[in-house]
C-alpha cells in the first residue's frame, strides 16, 4: 500500500510539473501582452515582466479613436451573424448526416472536409476579384460569406459527432408518444444537442473572430474592417511613435469577448447530459 501510494504521489507530481510547464508555455505570451498594455511609453522596452509604472493610457487611447470602436463593432457583428448562420445550417446538415441515409451522403461529408482542408490563402485573390465584381468587397456580407464557407465544415463535423451521441431511441420514443418529427426535434433532440450546439458556436465564433487573412484582404475601409485587420493599421499619434502599447491594449480587449463567451456557455457544455436516457 505504501509503495502504491508513493508511486501515485510521484506520478501526481510528475503530471503536475508537466501541466505547469504547458500552462506557462501557453500563458506567458498572453500575460506579456497584458503587461505591455499596462506599461507607459517610457517603460515599454525595459524588459520587465511586471510593469514598473502602471497606466491605463493605452486603453484610453484606443477607445478615444473611432478606428478601434468601429472595428470592434464590425468584428462583433460579422462574427455573430456568421456564427448564427453557420450553426443553424450546420445543425440541420449534421442532423441529416447523423440520422438519415440519403444518396450522396458520403460525397457531402467528403466535400465539406475538402473545403475545410483547402488552403485559404489560395482563395484570397479569386475571392478578392469576385467580390469586387459583385460589389461585396469591403462590406459585411463580403466577410460573412467566406467565414460561413469555412465555418460550416467545422460546425457540421462537430455537430454530427454530438448528434451521433444522442440515442436514436429517444426520437423513436418521442414519435411513439405522439410527437410529429418537428416536435420530436424541438422538444427532445434540440435540448439534448444544446451542449454540442454551444460548443460549436464557440469554435465557429473564435474562428471568425480571429481571422486575419480575409479581414485584411477583403476590406479596405472602416466600413467592414474587423479588429485583427484594424490592429495592423494602428499607428502612434506621430509617424515615429511606437504603437506597441495600444496594439497590446487592443489585443487584450478583443480577447475579452472570447473569454466571456466561453465562460457564459461553459455551464451549458456539460458532458454527459444524455446520461440516464438509456441503460447504464
Amino acid at each position, binding site marked *: 500500500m505504501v509503495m502504491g501510494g508513493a508511486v501515485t504521489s510521484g506520478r501526481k507530481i510528475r503530471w503536475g510539473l508537466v501541466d505547469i510547464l504547458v500552462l506557462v508555455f501557453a500563458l506567458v505570451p498572453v500575460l506579456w501582452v497584458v503587461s505591455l498594455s499596462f506599461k507607459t511609453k517610457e517603460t515599454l522596452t525595459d524588459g520587465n515582466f511586471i510593469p514598473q509604472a502602471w497606466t491605463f493610457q493605452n486603453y484610453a487611447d484606443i477607445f478615444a479613436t473611432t478606428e478601434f470602436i468601429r472595428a470592434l463593432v464590425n468584428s462583433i457583428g460579422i462574427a455573430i451573424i456568421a456564427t448564427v448562420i453557420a450553426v443553424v445550417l450546420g445543425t440541420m446538415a449534421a442532423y441529416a448526416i447523423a440520422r438519415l441515409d440519403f444518396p450522396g451522403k458520403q460525397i457531402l461529408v467528403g466535400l465539406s472536409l475538402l473545403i475545410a482542408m483547402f488552403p485559404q490563402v489560395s482563395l484570397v485573390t479569386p475571392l478578392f476579384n469576385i467580390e469586387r465584381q459583385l460589389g461585396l468587397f469591403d462590406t459585411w456580407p463580403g466577410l460573412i460569406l467566406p467565414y460561413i464557407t469555412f465555418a460550416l465544415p467545422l460546425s457540421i463535423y462537430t455537430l454530427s459527432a454530438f448528434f451521433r451521441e444522442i*440515442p436514436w*431511441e*429517444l426520437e*423513436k*420514443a*418521442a*414519435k*411513439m*408518444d*405522439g*410527437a*410529429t418529427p418537428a*416536435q420530436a426535434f424541438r*422538444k*427532445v433532440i434540440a*435540448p*439534448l444537442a444544446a451542449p454540442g450546439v454551444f460548443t460549436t458556436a464557440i469554435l465557429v465564433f473564435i474562428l471568425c473572430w480571429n481571422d486575419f487573412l480575409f479581414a485584411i484582404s477583403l476590406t479596405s475601409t472602416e466600413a467592414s474592417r474587423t479588429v485583427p485587420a484594424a490592429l495592423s493599421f494602428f499607428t502612434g499619434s506621430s509617424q515615429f511613435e511606437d504603437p506597441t502599447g495600444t496594439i497590446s491594449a487592443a489585443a487584450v480587449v478583443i480577447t475579452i469577448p472570447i473569454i466571456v463567451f466561453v465562460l457564459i456557455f461553459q455551464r451549458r457544455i456539460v458532458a454527459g*447530459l*444524455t*446520461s*440516464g*436516457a*438509456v*441503460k447504464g
Partner: protein
Amino acid sequence: MAEIVLDKVSKKYPDGALAVSEVDITIDDGEFLVLVGPSGCGKSTLLNMVAGLEDISAGELRIDGRRVNEKAPKDRDIAMVFQSYALYPHMTVRENMAFPLRLAKVDDRTVNSKVDEAAKILDLTAHLDRRPANLSGGQRQRVAMGRAIVRNPKAFLMDEPLSNLDAKLRGQMRTSVSKIQKQLGTTTLYVTHDQTEAMTLGDRVVVLRGGHVQQIGSPQFLYENPANLFVAGFIGSPSMNFVPATLENGTLRSPLGTVELTDRVRRLVEAADAPREVIAGVRPEHFEDAGLLDDSQKRGGSTFTAQVDVLESMGSEKYAHFTVEGEQATTSELAELAADSGSSDVPGGGSAIVTRLSSASSAREGQPLDVWFNADKVQLFDPSTGKNLTYSE
C-alpha cells in the same frame, strides 16, 4: 384497447434481406401476446412495424379493424416501452411521464392527476421530481412503463423491457408487468428472447425463427405440444434433450436404450407417416432415478445406465447431467438453438443429457446411475423437416 391483426405482414429490406415473412397473428382485445425467438429472428422488426417505426413491405396491419399501414406512429395511439427505456434525460420523471399528454394538449389538471395516478400504480410518487440519471435501473424501467400507461393507449408494445435489469429485479418486474397489464386490461405485444419471460407472461406465445412464425399457442400448449424441433428446443429450461433414434416395428432404438412405443405415440407416429430415422426428444422432468420407482411404474418406460457427469442439487430437485454414447442429433434447427444459447462452443463427444430427478435420488457425481424415462412422453421429430411426428392438438 383494441384488437390488432397482422395479415400476411412481411418486411423486406432494400438489400433484399427478408426480415419478416408473411406473418399472420391476431392479438385479441386485452390479450398479452409474447413474441419470442433468438436474436435476429425478426421479432423486433415486427414490433417496430406495428409501432409504425418501420414500414410494412407487404401485408396489412389492422388496429380495431382499420388499416393503419400508412399511419404515422402518433396516429396509431399505441405506446411503446423500449429496451433501453429511452427516457428524456433533460426532463424530470413527472415531465417524462407527462410528455405524451402534453403533446396531446391535455390540460394541466388532468395531466397531473393522470401522472400521479400512474406514479402510484408504479410506486414512483417519491421520485417524480428527480431526473432519470439519478434513478436506478428498475426505477427507470418503471418510468418508461409509466410513460406508456398515462395516456390509456389502445395497445402497449414492449421491446425486451426487462433485459437490462439484474436477475432478481427482472423476476419482480415480470410479476408487476403482468399485474399492471391485467389491471389495465390493455392489449399488449411483448417481445423477448427469454423463454422464461414468454412462458410466465404471455396469454399466448408466438415463436419466431428467421422471420417465420413457428407456432402460436398458450405457453403450456407450446411446452407440451411443440410443432417442431425448434419450438421444442427453444421452449423450456433446461431445454429438451435430443438424441438420434431409429423407429422399427413399434420400438424406438436410441442411445437411451430400446423402448416400446406406447399406443398413443404409435398411433400419432403412424398417422404422421414417420421415416425410420428420427430425432427423439425427452424433457428433463420425464426422467427419473430408476431406484425410486417400483416395477409397475417402470413398465411405462425404459431404463438405461449412465455415469453422472455433474449433479446440481437445487434442494427441491436434482439436475443430473449425463453424456450418452453415440452421435449427437444435428439439424439446422438444433445448430441454431445451440448457437443462440452459446452451447455450440462447449466441446464434448456424445449427446449431453440433462435430467430432473427427485431430491430423494441417490445420484452421485462420477457414479453410474440407473435412469428411467417415460416412454409415453417421448416426442419424435423428422430430422429433415424438423416437424413433430407426435404432434397432437
